[in-house]
């Protein structure tokens, strides 16, 4: 079996259909476990009190917002180099989820900032670059929606995402560059982490849950996109859910 077998929409469609329930279930179970750990088991933070518990959704969303953009950049490269249609469809399927997580990260960050910093929003480097990331998602979706010719929309979107992906490292290093009000990262591989073990576990499990959720939703969405685009292909007419 060649690795490229599943780069054809006709063979990826049923595979995605089989994978969705697995990732969906996994996401649900991890979210239940992570939320239990985060909301009931993890101790109260000695500085921030109960407010800190928003990190169990805030940090995973921020990670996913950035990570999904990187995944899109990878698909963009595949779409431009190998001219695979499916890669561009995956980008299109991932973008709304990435945008949702980025918006969620900003929203939860604002809710956390009010009681902790005393303000919903500060023009701090990391928040600002997350906002830019949100704009990048908006720009990509606007461009892809505006171009009627799907082939051109795919390639144009891929190029835009590649150019924009230069921005993602800037986001990551911005804390070091500008070094403003935003607290430095608490999870660090070099200095050992400053969090209680249960807090960290809860956060990591929630991150996994968000990851699995993203995969499940993106696969669902890509199936819809495949059906939409391949409506006139012969193989689509033989699918059970299309026939009935």
């Amino acid at each position, binding site marked *: 079996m060649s690795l490229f077998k599943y780069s054809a929409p006709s063979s990826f469609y049923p595979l995605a259909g089989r994978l969705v329930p697995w990732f969906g279930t996994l996401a649900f179970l991890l979210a239940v476990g992570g939320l239990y750990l985060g909301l009931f088991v993890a101790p109260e933070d000695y500085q921030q009190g109960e407010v800190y518990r928003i990190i169990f959704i805030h940090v995973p969303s921020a990670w996913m917002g950035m990570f999904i953009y990187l995944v899109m950049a990878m698909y963009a490269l595949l779409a431009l180099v190998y001219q695979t249609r499916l890669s561009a469809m995956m980008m299109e399927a991932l973008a709304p989820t990435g945008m949702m997580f980025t918006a969620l990260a900003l929203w939860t960050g604002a809710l956390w900032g009010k009681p902790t910093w005393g303000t919903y929003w500060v023009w701090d480097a990391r928040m600002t670059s997350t906002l830019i990331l949100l704009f990048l998602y908006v*720009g990509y979706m606007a461009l892809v929606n*505006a*171009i009627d010719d799907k082939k051109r929309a795919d390639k144009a979107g891929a*190029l835009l995402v590649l150019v924009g992906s230069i921005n993602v490292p800037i986001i990551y290093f911005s804390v070091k560059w500008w070094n403003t009000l935003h607290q430095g990262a608490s999870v660090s591989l070099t200095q050992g982490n400053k969090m209680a073990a249960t807090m960290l576990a809860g956060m990591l499990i929630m991150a996994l849950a968000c990851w699995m959720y993203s995969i499940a939703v993106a696969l669902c969405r890509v199936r819809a996109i495949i059906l939409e685009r391949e409506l006139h292909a012969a193989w689509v007419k033989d699918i059970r859910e299309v026939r009935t």
Partner: protein
Amino acid sequence: MSAVLASEQELSTPERGVWLTLTRDIKLAMRSKGELAQALAFFIIVVSLFPLAIGPESAVLKRIAAGVVWVCALLAVMLTLPRLFQSDYVDGTLEQLALSPYPLPLLCAGKMLAHWLSTGLPLAMVAPVLGLQFGLDASELLVMVAGLLIGTPVLTMLGAIGAALVLGVRGGSILMALLVLPLYIPVLIFGAGAVEASLAGIDATANLSLLAAMLLFGLVTTPFAAAAAVKISLD
């Protein structure tokens, strides 16, 4: 157009592609001076609106001068971006350029250079006068002009990619703002940051160096990205 169709002898140096589009676009720009003046007038008028909206206190104006000038420069450059490819796309010249034996990235580089010479450079030349209106001193004005001279080419180069991507797309100009403005933000931060730093009495070279780094990185990458974007739009 005839200048683009090169003889085989000229082709021995593909770098001439830069020169060909550069001279051609400059010539075209000089023939429509009104269009050049429009961008400058826009820049000056919008900058002058801010004191009217905010009030004439000189301390406040001095604080916001760098940001206002840079944001207006961003918008002025963005509004002129269609000039890069739009008319060539409509009359088919762009297709001929893409088919010509010269490497398309070099042709795009020539176009970018011409665009910067006809927009970014004049903006940077006018900026000190506007800075004076906001009460900036000579040293701060110098930093602002230096920042604009280094930063506006980056705006042109990034903008060229966006301008090429939206060719022939409905709602192109608003769409281009959505694509291009987020990419402009780092230039804005460091450009305005340089003036802020010199206002605060700190050395501005760190900000200017970062701008210069973006310029150098853009020089080697954006012509290829713009050429790829042109090819996508011509498909």
